[in-house]
């Protein structure tokens, strides 16, 4: 089950960013995205400063852009929408390379795209440098409700159980020539999903039983002591939102 501790978005490295405590990084990332998401879209300076700061952070974290860029795919649906806006919006037009584009659409598309890309990149950097169980522990230290972190911890643990069951089931289906293309071929899939749920649940039950059999009472025992986050860690982490905030102020000055 433990393989959930390394997931495809995590980059194994020993950078200063990797070594920051998870809750510190969570606060820094969240503050950064707030700054970016609330900046008026005309304040291009803010976005440029934020982007440069983020690029620097990525360098420090020793995460390659080649790794991050394809994973930005999560926002492509929204980028497609943003790209379409200039062509289809009405209102005053500007000519770009001879194509008349709606000015409002250009700004609207730019606003959606730049915030989505910067926000997603910041989140990706967080995930690339922090393992999921650490993130959950970070949330706990930030006083997220225990019920939620507990559900999340079980979810992460069982996710792998389910992915395992799914791949086994998929393999069994493929081995017997399953290749769904149409809605009516979904029936085995939905029936299979129900069986999958029960099997995952029962497997989860067994894992949970195994944990209870060894005295588990709902709280993970302390296996390795955690060190408290020092002032240095906070200072280092908060550089990211602080620079973005400076960019925000610069934006206000430049663009009024």
């Amino acid at each position, binding site marked *: *089950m433990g393989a959930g501790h390394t997931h495809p978005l995590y980059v194994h490295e020993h950078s200063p960013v990797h070594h920051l405590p998870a809750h510190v990084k969570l606060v820094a990332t969240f503050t950064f995205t707030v700054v970016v998401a609330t900046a008026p879209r005309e304040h291009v300076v803010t976005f440029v400063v934020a982007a440069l700061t983020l690029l620097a952070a990525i360098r420090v974290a020793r995460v390659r852009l080649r790794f991050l860029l394809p994973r930005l795919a999560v926002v492509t649906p929204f980028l497609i929408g943003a790209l379409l806006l200039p062509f289809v919006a009405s209102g005053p037009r500007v000519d770009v390379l001879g194509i008349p584009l709606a000015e409002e659409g250009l700004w609207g598309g730019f606003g959606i795209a730049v915030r989505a890309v910067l926000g997603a990149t910041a989140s990706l950097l967080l995930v690339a440098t922090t393992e999921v169980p650490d993130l959950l522990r970070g949330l706990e230290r930030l006083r997220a409700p225990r019920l939620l972190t507990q559900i999340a911890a079980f979810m992460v643990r069982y996710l792998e159980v389910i992915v395992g069951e799914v791949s086994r089931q998929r393999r069994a289906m493929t081995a017997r020539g399953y290749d769904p293309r149409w809605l009516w071929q979904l029936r085995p899939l939905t029936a299979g999903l129900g069986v999958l749920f029960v099997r995952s649940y029962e497997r989860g039950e*067994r894992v949970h039983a195994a944990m209870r059999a060894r005295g588990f009472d709902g709280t993970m025992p302390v296996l390795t002591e955690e060190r408290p986050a020092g002032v240095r860690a906070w200072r280092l982490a908060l550089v990211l939102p602080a620079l973005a905030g400076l960019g925000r102020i610069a934006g206000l000055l430049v663009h009024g």
Partner: protein
Amino acid sequence: MTAAEDDASPDPQAPALEVADLRFDYPDGTTALHGIDLRVAAGERVALVGPNGAGKTTLALHTNGLLRAASGTIRVAGVTLADATLREIRDRVGFVFQDAEDQLFLSTVRDDVAFGPANHGLRGTELDARVDAALAALEVTHLADRAPHHLSGGEQRRVAIATVLAMRPDLLVLDEPTAGLDPASRRELMTTLAGLDVAQLIVTHDLPMVLELCPRTVLVDGGRVVADGPSDLLLRDADLLTAHRLELPYGLAPR
């Protein structure tokens, strides 16, 4: 059972396990146990055999309170299983699941072995000592930093036993410990079990192993104990075996 007998403090002289008139129904109505009586003395090694669906796993899960019976009593080292003693019983009974993947859930072997003792409050050097001892007993010290799910079947099984051994149980319950092991791993496991100084209840279909390892065999079928006695006698009774869907492999069976 009278209150006077209900001694909550463990008794080293008491039998490792006493099961009396245990009945159990699954939520869907299947009656899996129809009144089981079973006794395992301190330090004894007993085999629990029977056909598929006999109720072996169901019985085994009761020994550490993972299932709670509709009626009947369970006593482990003299402590009667009840809500108040559940934790203590789980300390005393080490349960090794049939599928090691169900049992190992942390990211390193060391963490997984430490999980149980840490749940009981052990910390620091005391915890480390306990873990090291368990790893050494199962000869898996060299695997301490590996990920459990990247180990071979035989290694996983040994680590799984180490995780429960680290809790210093009075009784070790193993559900089909040799299933899926190659013959050499099976033999190594048998040697390991033979060397452990703790009462063992071994659920298995591997009758040759029973003959070698367990002086005593309990045969269950249809949720009832149908025979209980020396393995040599019981497993040479061809009629009894046939009646309960068991047989010794060709070559071992009486000629």
